[in-house]
């Protein structure tokens, strides 16, 4: 999965055509670490249909907040650079992400 940061976020997400799924996470967020491998599976499943990327909020806190993300884990789905959906909560399941992404591809 593509690693996002301040330098490439604009290009890879906001100026990107098609579907981009961004996984906001941090080292201190246990639910994020548990969810990550399942999101990586989804990245494989949707290969060629949606771009999956992750953003560590450590050092990118303001960038996350600019995307109105202030809670982890958060999965945000973008279509042609426009934010479409924001899934969040420590009980967030990969299956919910799967269902949400399926609506856009």
């Amino acid at each position, binding site marked *: 999965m593509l690693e996002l940061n301040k330098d490439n976020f604009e290009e890879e997400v906001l100026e990107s055509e098609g579907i981009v799924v961004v996984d906001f996470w941090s080292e201190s*967020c*246990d639910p994020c670490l548990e969810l990550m491998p399942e999101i990586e599976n989804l990245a494989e499943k949707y290969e060629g249909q949606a771009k999956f990327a992750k953003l560590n*909020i450590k050092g990118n*806190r303001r960038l996350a*907040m600019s995307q109105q*993300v*202030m*809670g982890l884990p958060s999965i945000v789905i973008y279509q042609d650079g426009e934010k479409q959906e924001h899934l969040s909560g*420590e009980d967030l399941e990969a299956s919910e992400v799967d269902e949400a992404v399926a609506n856009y591809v």
Partner: protein
Amino acid sequence: MAEVYDILIIGGGPAGLSCAIYGSRSKLKTLVLESSRKLGGQVADYHEMENYPGVVDTTAPELVDSFEEHAKKFGAEFARGEVAELELDGFIKKVRTEKGEEYQAKSIVIATGAEPRKLGAKGEDEFRGKGVSYCATCDADFYVDLDVVVVGNGNSAIEEAIYLTKFARKVTIIVIHEEGKMDAEKLFQERAYANDKIEFVWNSTLEEVKGEGIVDTAVLKNVKTGELTEFDCDGIFIFVGRVPSTDFLEDTEVDLNEQGYIITNDEMQTSVQGVYAAGDVRDKPVRQVVTAAGDGATAAVMSQSYLEAEEHWRENVLKTDKQVVVAFWNPTDNDSLDTLQTIEKLGVEEDDNKKLVKIDTYRNTLITERYKVTEIPTILLIEEGEVVERLTKPAAEDLEEVLS
């Protein structure tokens, strides 16, 4: 045929894991069914752990990791799944998950715990992940040098507020009680008062969450005057108690109290035979990691003695063509010793059509209570599972009459 577990534990928090340690160590075939990705239950979201006896220097995640390691050491099995349906009548019980997997077990221990209660304030759901949080460890990083509000005044609220001061510029605790009164234990209250990053708003509750995209205002309501005030903040953490996770028991015979907690006796037995409850999900006064672990141990031991008594009864009394002479006795009771002697003299054990089964009323309360035996010695004659004769404190002549 699918495997049948001796104990199936629903929930992998401290109560469930402790039960798994005791169950698997006693060589019972034990399965822990956990709905979330990680074991540990509510403890998985905590950080500090200062009061688990004998473990002086640890964190909550470390402690729960060692619970897990401990249970695995003795061979407990683990599976992931959220319970959708239970079939609890009959000796073999069935558990079905939302994904359709089915498990079978002879006894069930419900250790599903509790989950954070939502406050129900306007905007609370809408701003989840955008400034409204129920998990300080997950989200504290966002609030470095920012202002946050903590709603609640129990142990969790005050502990989390103190944790958040390591990140935030200011933490304001919203307390529904009057000034100086909190539900948290004294130790936490003193720590909160001593922390210069913590401030309090008394007599108040959260009425509404507002913001543009992300939270910028908490609307607070004074519960005495009804007055509303807007409070600027960047995040709102809500810790207003917990609710038991017992929705899946709705269609079962397991009795719940008014708040939805499971009612048990001192042996962790629920209203359904062979079904036990342990930990925070149970109706009880103290909900701590150590009390949950204690419940789990009790549930495992009681479920083991239930299994032994029930299986012994089925094997020796219900599955035989012979007439079964059941003697309820107790080694400390002389009359019952005399009665046993009389039965032996009558040659019951040499008779091919008869079988003697002794039930120690002190050790085997399950069968004693099932047959409502209150006095010893009591003798039951059972044919094809049905009681055909019942003798309470019989004289030797009475025994002779029915047994020879």
